């Protein structure tokens, strides 16, 4: 096994080009478990810790450029208002120690359906900045997850950052686990209201071969809100609409039975989470609208 320690981003890209099978390691929270448990023996480990820019973020006019290695702790502490869904998701990641090390780049690189960031990223929308010596690609998050633990990266590419729109409305994230802390998702759900475009986006984790959106549910809800004039009148969403939304979210999932939970429970729980997070985000939206009107 070789251990490469590039000191700069350019060096890292060169190393990845030269060793396409090299496994990037940043927080180590996935890679080291596999090595410790003898599940994986990479030829080359490519340490990204020394590349300071990966741990930096920039808040722009409309978007946040989030370095691949910005820790979950930093996201929780610094980006709660810009990326509320991701901040909530970050808070559910494993333990304080893991949140201090792990970042979104690792979650994307591993592309496990159980990764906590994915539902929030899908709900937010955004792009993954994938870079190689050949150049830079912006991969829409919707096109990033291509199979079980497989992503759209080419062998010579590394994730430099994700570009996420600053939240223009309330976002929520909810995850079911059988423990009250330090638990892998049995299933998870992310929801973002986008009042500017009057759209809804969702993300489902651990309930399909890849993280997915519940697009039918999104379309249904957006149409229902539009039709009823809810964006303007800020009325409570009728229970029938919430129920239908929840059912469509459940239906979007394609879960399996495993040691963490049954397929039918996952479907059921997603429906509950969809209904609750819709209630929380809509309450927040109505609250914001009211205070905006009062001001």
């Amino acid at each position, binding site marked *: 096994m070789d251990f490469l320690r590039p000191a700069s981003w350019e060096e890292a890209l060169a190393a990845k080009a030269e060793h396409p099978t090299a496994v990037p390691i940043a927080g180590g929270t996935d890679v080291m478990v596999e090595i*410790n*448990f*003898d599940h994986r023996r990479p030829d080359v480990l490519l340490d990204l810790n020394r590349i300071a820019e990966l741990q930096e973020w920039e808040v722009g006019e409309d978007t946040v450029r989030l370095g691949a290695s910005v820790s979950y702790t930093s996201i929780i502490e610094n980006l709660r208002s810009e990326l509320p869904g991701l901040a*909530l998701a970050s*808070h*559910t990641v494993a333990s304080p120690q893991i949140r201090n090390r792990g970042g979104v780049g690792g979650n994307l690189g591993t592309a496990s359906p159980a990764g906590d960031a994915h539902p929030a990223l899908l709900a937010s929308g955004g792009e993954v900045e994938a870079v190689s010596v050949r150049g830079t690609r912006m991969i829409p998050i919707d096109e990033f997850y291509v199979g079980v633990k497989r992503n759209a990266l080419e062998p010579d590419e590394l994730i430099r950052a994700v570009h996420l729109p600053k939240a223009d409305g309330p976002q*929520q*994230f*909810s*995850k*079911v*686990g*059988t*423990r*009250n*802390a*330090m*638990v*892998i*998702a*049995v299933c998870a759900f992310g929801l973002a209201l986008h009042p500017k475009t009057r759209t809804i986006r969702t993300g489902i984790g651990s309930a399909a071969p890849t993280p997915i959106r519940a697009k039918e549910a999104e379309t249904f809800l957006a149409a229902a809100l539009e039709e009823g004039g809810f964006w303007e009148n800020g009325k409570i969403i009728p229970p029938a609409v919430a129920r239908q939304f929840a059912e469509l979210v459940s239906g979007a999932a394609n879960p399996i039975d495993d*040691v*963490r*939970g*049954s397929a*039918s*429970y996952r*479907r*059921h*729980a997603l429906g*509950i*989470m969809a209904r*609750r997070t819709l*209630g*929380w985000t809509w309450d927040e939206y109505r609250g914001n609208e009211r205070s905006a009107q009062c001001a």
Partner: protein
Amino acid sequence: MGVTRTPTNITQGSQTKGGIGESTLRPDGTLKVTGEFAYSSDLWHEDMLWGFTLRSPHPHARIKSIDTSEALAQAGVYAVLTHDDLPTEHTKYGLEYTDTPVLADGVVRHHGEPVALVAADHPETARRAAAKIKVDYEPLPVVHDEASALADDAPILHPGRDDHHAGQVPHPNIVHRQPIIRGNAEEAAQRADVIVSGEYEVGMQDQAFLGPESGLAVPGEDGGVDLYVATQWLHSDLRQIAPVLGLPEEKVRMTLSGVGGAFGGREDLSMQIHACLLALRTGKPVKIVYNRFESFFGHVHRHPAKLWYEHGATKDGKITHMKCRIVLDGGAYASASPAVVGNASSLSVGPYVIDDVEIEAVALYTNNPPCGAMRGFGAVQACFAYESQMDKLAEKLGMDPVEFRQKNAMSQGTIMPTGQVVDSPAPVAELLRRVKAMPLPPEKQWEAAGDAADVRALPGGLSNTTHGEGVVRGIGYAVGIKNVGFSEGFDDYSTARVQLQVINGEPVATVHTAMAEVGQGGVTVHAQIARTELGVTQVVIHPADTQVGSAGSTSASRQTYMTGGAVKNTCEAVREKVLEIGRRKFGTYHPAWATAELLLESGKVVTDGGEPLADLVDVLEGETVDIELEWRHRPTEAFDLVTGQGFGHVQYSFAAHRAVVEVDTELGLVKVIELACAQDVGKALNPLSVKGQIQGGTTQGLGLAVMEEIIVSKDSKVRNPSFTDYLIPTILDTPTIPVDVLELADEHAPYGLRGIGEAPTLSSTPAVVSAIRAATGLALNRVPVRPEHITGT
């Protein structure tokens, strides 16, 4: 958090500072907080090799061939051993039956069974070499439950059994069977106004001690071996190790290393023989450390169980009878299964007066992971079932579940189903009264912080699943009974060697036992006993090793009773010797030497009236008093194999819990808000440690109630051998645990104490489940309760 005592006439020794009854601090505390305490995985030796174990991927298979040549050829590899390399014809070991192969002998009987060993200069070298060992397996049909174990065409897992129960079991795949018949359950059932029955199931729990199996074997110049290891019973290990190595016991010198928890999981051998074999073969020190994955295969687990119960009661709430059948899955090897059967059957009635019973408990041989000792040992499984039945009965009778239990609660003088008269306090009704009387925690604590719900106080915790929606509170009660010490006629004893001498002008006692300190605080208590009995301040606790006689196991809630008792007994002998010396030297100076009861207190010989007669320093001068003695509890009897009658248990231990839970009824997630416990401890030698034991045991019971289970597939494979998928409670899962300690002395026990370690693990589980039932209205007959069970999905 009061402590209640009754007056007793039991001797309590002198009033020396730091003696019994005080919450003195751990003698190993400083080393443990500075990181200097040497656990078995911390050991290091010049020129040391690393051992690694190749394990079977199959639950049941014939081994057609093993080719180790490629592994042996690897650079850095010093030895590769298989069954064929074992040095003697003693190739098996076992706690009760000698049925467990040191390395698989032509057949593997469970997933993860050791097949070959490698010693190399780096753990990675050893792992890579092990991967190059070619084992040709022919998979065999799997026995995974009672039906497949007893089927006409069932494979007999241990043909030609020669253990002491082999002749009596109804089928060779039954490890042991214990019926207990008392009164006439059929007839008594006629008097019942209501009858309830139920089928209950307990999943396979893991001890999940945090320090994985590990140790270091160092070959000696005399052809023997020095073994430093974390275990619960040095001498039991020694008895099993030495014959396999072909060495006399005195050439296998064992020293206890730091033990990172045990809870029954270190009763059986793990890496002990393997490390010794590799050390003797290579002539080099060999260290073996399991990682968490391997640890799940490296020790036995709590028996999963199926339990069928029937109870009847009269309208006025008196239980008429009980029938039960308990089937424990012992897995591939016997381990402690026979004793677990004895406990499960003899304690199956719970802490209740029921004169007419029909009980049967069996343990099976299957191809599942071997099961054996874990905190609670057979009584945990029964307690979940009988306490579930008590709730059902109370409900059917329309009675308060606590009052119903109190009405049927046993007390001193009650006759157990085994015919044994309970001859010390059994304050079952009082314990229930106490937990019920504790103030309830405030409602909706998640709203306390202000506007936003504090999700940390809600089911789901940080996962943000509810802000109060769907959350319902429930309250449940349970009480349990556990035996203390080794039972069924086992010659249970412990040994203590105590020295008293003057060092640097001060009397110093040295206490040497082979007791395994696994975290319970036995070392603290031994020093307290020595201070109380010998009136010294300075006590040295000698490291535990096999240079002193056996202490028995640190299990069965027995060590404070047994090795504490042994230390007390030896100290008394030392005191007699000191007084003899004193009388010889100073007897003529004061008449009290001849006439008074004399004590050793605060460095002096004093009369029972408190008058000092001489300084210990002057009595001892240059002399060292040095005594080693064995000490036994009163004998017990085996249970009759047909009727189950017999004076089987030396002491019983009782705890009661009240659980307050909040359940997200829509998602099936549970947050335990409070788990109050009341326990009778006889005498709290160290109140701080007593509470620590109760709170720790309570938490393990909580784990079994809502999250802990080793999941074994229908084809007998372990599916979750990691801390990612075998979950134990975090600090956010664990509630406040108020403890009410009673001290009702047992006059048969040293200082009147009662073994305490296990009882709180029993009643915690059914109390939590009862509270979940109260919140949801569901039957919930299986633990752990999973979200699916609550949501019905």
